[in-house]
Each structure stands twice: as structure tokens, then as C-alpha cells.
């Protein structure tokens, strides 16, 4: 099945403009992976900690520890500063001495001025997690890592750091580490990068730009283009004609002296029409963007996800989306603007 192909990778990135639903989609993929019996880690790469909230758990806060969210799913908030401290602690061995180093003003100064070091350490942590083994030794601790990333521009500056470091630093551990990380990020067997967008002007622009950056500058393997929050098609054929006739006929203004009970359908009629008109306009707006997206990225496999408004909780939303994805085939993008 289509989603199995996505989940076959070990390191799955999701990126796109803020507000397009990356975190919920990341949670959905994790949910589906866990249901397939795979040990899954959701990684928040320097984003606002919202993923635990989706699962109804408190946020990770500043703690740098894997947080169990559901059977088979843990979450880790990765930021560069903690990543660096963890790394140095490993090198320093003595915990107490490490604590003293981290408090030292020279260290603080260094951390603040070393450009990109924090970003490098954060991405380096992904390599570390991918290689982490369980208590038994050889078996990987996690089968799948799903990475929710910050807004597009910052995602690129994070993922670019290992490349920059491998290119500019000539010797030292940074150079060695950076190359390892670059190799993982560009590995088409293990890694794939998915773009998430909605059908609105700016998210579409960013998706097209991001696609170019990922495939050229970062040379990372691209996955799918998830098109989120798609409105259903408006009425068509005879129904569209009947709708137009109803719209044209005009609706009676409810006079102030005819009080109607809230149960009377007549007081809802104008609102039903207003909502229908809005639906039609939004669908048309989306159609324009859909065409722009098709034009900008003609070769990308598109996965359409419906606009869901009646999920009582984010977890319910995850379940509804995962059902949609379970029923999506690679051949059919599930959305069409043929009308």
C-alpha cells in the first residue's frame, strides 16, 4: 500500500510553510507506523512543542528526554544547545566537570558565537538517534524517525549546516561528524523528505521553492507532496443548476415583527445559502492554487487530504487522516479539480 512505501524509510522529514498542518500529519504518520508494530520516534526539530499536545500529553518543555506518547510512539524535542551539551558530556566523561564547563562564561560565549554550531548539533542528533540501539545491542532502538521541522526558511538553514560545515571546516571532529550526517541526509534508502502545503498562494510558493532547494542545494531524496485541507467539490450538473435557481430567486428578508423559533428552517435559509456561497468561492480559490501547484511541480506525486472540521480533538483528527491515508493508492492522488 501507498503509505507503506512512505513508512519504509527510517528518517522521514516533513516541512512546509507554518500553519499547513505539518505537526498533525507527523503525528498521523507516527500513529500509522505504530499500528504497523514499528517503534516510532517523533522528533520536533526546534519547533514549538505541540506534538505531545496532539496526543493529549503535556509538552516536553525544555527537557531533553524521550517522552512516551502512545504505545509504540515517543517524542523528543531536539534543540541544538542540549544536543551540544550531550555531545560534550560524552567527550568529557565526568558529569560534574561537564556541568562546570557548561556554566563557565567562556563556554557560554563560545556557544553563542560559533555560527551554526547549535544547528549542526541538532541535525547531528538525528544521526545519533538513527544509530541508537536498544538494550540488546544490535537492534535499532527506533524503526522510524519522523521529523517535524520549523518554518521553511529555518528548516533549510538547519539542514544546510552539515553541508556548510563539511565544506568549510577542514579538520577536527566537526568535519568528521558533519560528513556522516550529510551522508545520512542524502541516503535515498534511509531518508525521504516530504513537503506539506495547503492550496493557498503563499504555502504553494514556499512548497515550490522548497522543492527546488531540497533537490538541488541540499541534494536530499524527495518524497511526496501532501496537499492538506482540501475542500470537497461543490455541487455539479443538475444540482448546480438547481442551486443557481435558488440563489437567483432571492430570499425573503426576515422581518423584525415575525419572530421565528430557532427550530424554524426559514431562519436558517439565508445562512445556509451564505455558507454555500463561501464554500463555492473557497473551492474556486483552491482550484487556482491547485493549478499553480501542478504547474510548478509537474512531476511530484501528490497526496490530497480533506479539510476536516468536525474532529472533536486533535487525536480524532489524526485518526480520520490516517483512515484517508490508508485508503490512498499511489496511482490516485485522491483529489481532483476536474469540475
Amino acid at each position: 500500500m501507498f503509505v507503506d512505501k512512505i513508512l519504509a524509510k527510517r528518517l522521514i522529514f516533513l516541512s512546509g510553510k507554518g500553519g499547513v498542518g505539518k505537526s498533525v500529519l507527523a503525528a498521523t504518520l507516527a500513529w500509522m507506523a505504530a499500528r504497523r508494530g514499528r517503534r516510532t520516534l517523533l522528533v520536533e526539530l526546534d519547533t514549538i512543542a505541540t506534538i505531545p499536545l496532539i496526543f493529549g500529553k503535556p509538552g516536553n518543555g525544555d527537557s531533553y528526554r524521550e517522552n512516551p506518547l502512545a504505545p509504540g510512539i515517543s517524542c523528543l524535542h531536539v534543540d541544538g544547545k542540549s544536543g551540544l551539551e550531550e555531545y560534550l558530556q560524552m567527550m568529557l566523561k565526568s558529569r560534574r566537570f561537564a556541568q562546570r564547563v557548561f556554566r563557565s562564561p567562556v563556554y557560554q560565549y563560545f556557544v553563542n558565537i560559533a555560527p551554526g554550531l547549535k544547528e549542526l548539533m541538532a541535525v547531528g542528533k538525528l544521526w545519533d538517534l538513527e544509530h541508537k540501539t536498544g538494550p540488546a545491542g544490535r537492534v535499532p532502538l527506533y524503526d522510524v524517525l519522523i521529523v517535524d521541522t520549523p518554518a521553511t526558511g529555518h528548516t533549510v538553514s538547519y539542514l544546510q549546516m552539515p553541508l556548510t560545515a563539511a565544506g568549510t571546516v577542514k579538520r577536527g571532529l566537526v568535519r568528521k561528524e558533519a560528513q556522516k550526517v550529510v551522508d545520512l541526509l542524502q541516503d535515498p534508502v534511509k531518508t525521504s523528505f516530504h513537503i506539506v502545503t495547503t492550496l493557498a498562494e503563499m504555502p504553494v510558493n514556499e512548497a515550490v521553492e522548497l522543492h527546488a532547494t531540497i533537490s538541488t542545494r541540499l541534494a536530499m531524496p524527495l518524497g511526496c507532496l501532501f496537499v492538506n485541507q482540501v475542500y470537497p467539490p461543490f455541487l455539479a450538473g443538475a444540482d448546480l443548476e438547481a442551486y443557481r435557481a435558488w440563489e437567483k430567486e432571492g430570499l425573503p428578508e426576515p422581518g423584525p415583527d415575525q419572530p421565528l423559533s430557532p427550530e424554524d428552517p426559514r431562519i436558517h435559509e439565508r445562512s445556509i445559502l451564505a455558507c454555500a456561497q463561501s464554500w463555492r468561492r473557497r473551492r474556486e480559490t483552491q482550484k487556482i492554487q491547485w493549478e499553480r501547484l501542478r504547474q510548478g511541480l509537474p512531476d511530484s506525486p501528490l497526496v490530497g487530504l480533506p479539510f476536516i472540521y468536525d474532529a472533536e480533538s486533535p487525536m480524532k483528527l489524526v485518526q480520520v487522516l490516517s483512515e484517508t491515508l490508508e485508503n490512498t493508492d499511489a496511482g490516485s492522488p485522491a483529489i481532483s479539480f476536474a469540475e
Partner: protein
Amino acid sequence: MPDRRPFRLRSRAVTGLDLEALVRQKRILICCGSGGIGKTTVSAALGVQAALMGKKVLTLTIDPAKRLANSLGMAQLGNTETLVSREHFRRSGMKPAGSLYAMMLDTKHTFDELIERYAPNEEIKKNILKNRFYQNLSSAMAGSHEYLAMEKLYQIYLDGRYDLIVLDTPPTRHALDFLEAPGRVRAFFDRGISQWFLKPYLTMGRLGLSLLNRTSGTVLKLVERVTGAEFLRDVSEFVTGLADAFDIFRSRAEEVLHVLRGESTSFLLITGTERGALEEVSFFYRRLREAGLPFGGIVVNRVNVDPLTGRAGSLFSRAAVISGPLRESLAVFLREKTRLSVPATRKLVDNYHHYQSLFARDQAVLEEFTASFPAGIPVRVIPVLDEDIFDLGGLAKINSFLFAPGA
């Protein structure tokens, strides 16, 4: 004609945010908020309105993505101030009494300008511009954006060529760094610590390390092991080359903070109705208060409103979301009244339910959100629009909500 009075909540804990007064009185407006909630659009819309009000205004964005150009319907923006042409306004049916300029901050370019201005001599200038540490620092690294934005903002402010500057900041997490920028640059260019730690390295090489205390020495050795020795040499060259400029940088950073705290500046917090964005704004509000920075008000973008009246609080707040049996009788009613098929009437009623649910949800979210602020907090609401906003006409539509006269 949709009703565009400022929205009212049952609790009446909010007042309408008077953006017109802010545009008239302030010289700097700073828009902060998390990503994806239309912050850039709001900044651009404020610029358009200021121009219509006769101001010479600059909208400055430091967002890495090219959103401002998008919002203004322009193809590209460089580090130069671009005038939005009268012709462009005219095509959207507007005739501004003032003028609108737009600019996107080019971090690298701004940093180079700074070095060129403050390097003590030609040789140091040349060395620094090709120093690898500097090149890394200046090209789009998180952290340097914020300082440079402040630097540019301050430069433009001092030049005095504009009546108003509207600044669109990067997504919140980084906008917070932006507040810390003056402090950070002070620490960065702190003569004491930088020389204490780097001078010995440059002048005495590794031998110098033994002169430091044990912890500092270890840190430097560690740094060397991690990054290689070239890195430290590059840092040394950079820091010592600019040593004399440090005092200037530091006092500039302090002046910037002074202007930000002053009467002529106001911070606007922009949010949507998603929990994450609202939480960021609450956090940001506390930070502004702690830092003694002037808070102007909150703009809530993309609020689901009553599609009939275009209002955030009205009909639906009184009528509960329609129940199952009522949905059934509405479908029957439509079927009798129109020639729509059974599935079509069901779709229309479901769609009505969809809008009502979203409206009710946003209503509840906003009630809860505003209740967490002091009473009378200034708030403006922009509804979800059916069309995309990507040209001046769209921005004018946004302004019809931002600047609607108070009720």
C-alpha cells in the same frame, strides 16, 4: 455589505484596537507572532493604510521567505527600498496621498556594510571580509538575523527619511532572539571576555591556554578538538580586528533598545486561532512586559465568522450549532423549496454545520484567550477570507477589517 464593527465577546473583556491612532502617532510598528498566521500580510496592509493616510512608509521584512514581495504583488524585493508605484495602486483603485516602500533585509549585505563602516583600516576590513568565521556568521545564520534587523531598523530610523517603519519579524521563536539582540550583541562584543579568552590564543598560541584557569583552558581545548584550530584562529582574527569597534557596536545596541522602549515604537502581536499560535502570543506578551517594551495590541487573523453577517460574534453565538434532528428538517425544507437532489441538500446542510462548528470553536477559543489578559486589552479580528490575499486589492480588504471605525 458585511458588518465590520470590531468584534465583541460576551465577556466584553476587550476593546477595539485603534490601529489608525498607532499609524498616525508612531514611527516604528513591530509585528510579532508565530509563522503561518499572516504576519507579513498584516505588516504589508499596515503599510498600505499608512500610505493612504498620507505617510511616507517603509515595510521592512526579515523573514527568510519572500513573503512581502508576495503580499505586495511584486515580483522581487532586494536589500534596496522599492517604491510601490502609483500605477500599481491605481490598478487596485487606490490613490495614496503618501508613498509606500518595501524592503527585504539581506543579512549578508547589511553585515558587510557594518564591517565596511567600522573596520579601523583597509587591511583589517579586507581580512575580515574574507575571514571564514565572518563569512559563516554573516550568511543567514540563525541569531545574526535578529541583530542585523535591529541595526538596519535603527539606521533607517536615524536617517529620518520615513514617517513610519513597519517591521515584520521572523516567526516568534526567533523574534524572541530579536528582543535579546541588543543584550546578545553586548555580550558578543564584550571587550573584557572576548579578549580574555581570545587574545592569548592569538598571541601565544596553545601556550596561552595554560595561562587561563582550568575550566576555561579545557573549554578552549575542547573547542579546538571539536572545530579544529582554524576556527579559533578565525574567531581571534575577527574579534581582535574589530576590537576598537566594539564600543561603538555596544553603544549602538543600547541606543536601539532605548528607541524600542520609547514613545515612538509600538509592538503588535499577530496570531491565528490555533492553540500553538495563541500560546506564543501569550508568552510574547509577558516577555514584552518584562522587557519594558511598549505593547500596542493583538490582531487575530483568520477567525471563522458568521458567513451571513461577516461578524465574529452574533447570530451563531446565540443559536447553538444545529442538532441532528434540525439538520434533517433543514434538508427536507430545502428539498421542498428547491429542485436540489437529496444528496445535494444533505451536502449543503452539512456545509452549514461545518461553518457553524468552526465559528463556535473560534468563538470559544477567543473567549478563553482574551480572558487570560487584563480587561480591556485592545484586540482586532480579521475573518477567514474566501479569496487569497496576494495583491494590493487584497490588502485593502484586510484593512477594511483592521481600520473599521470602532463601535
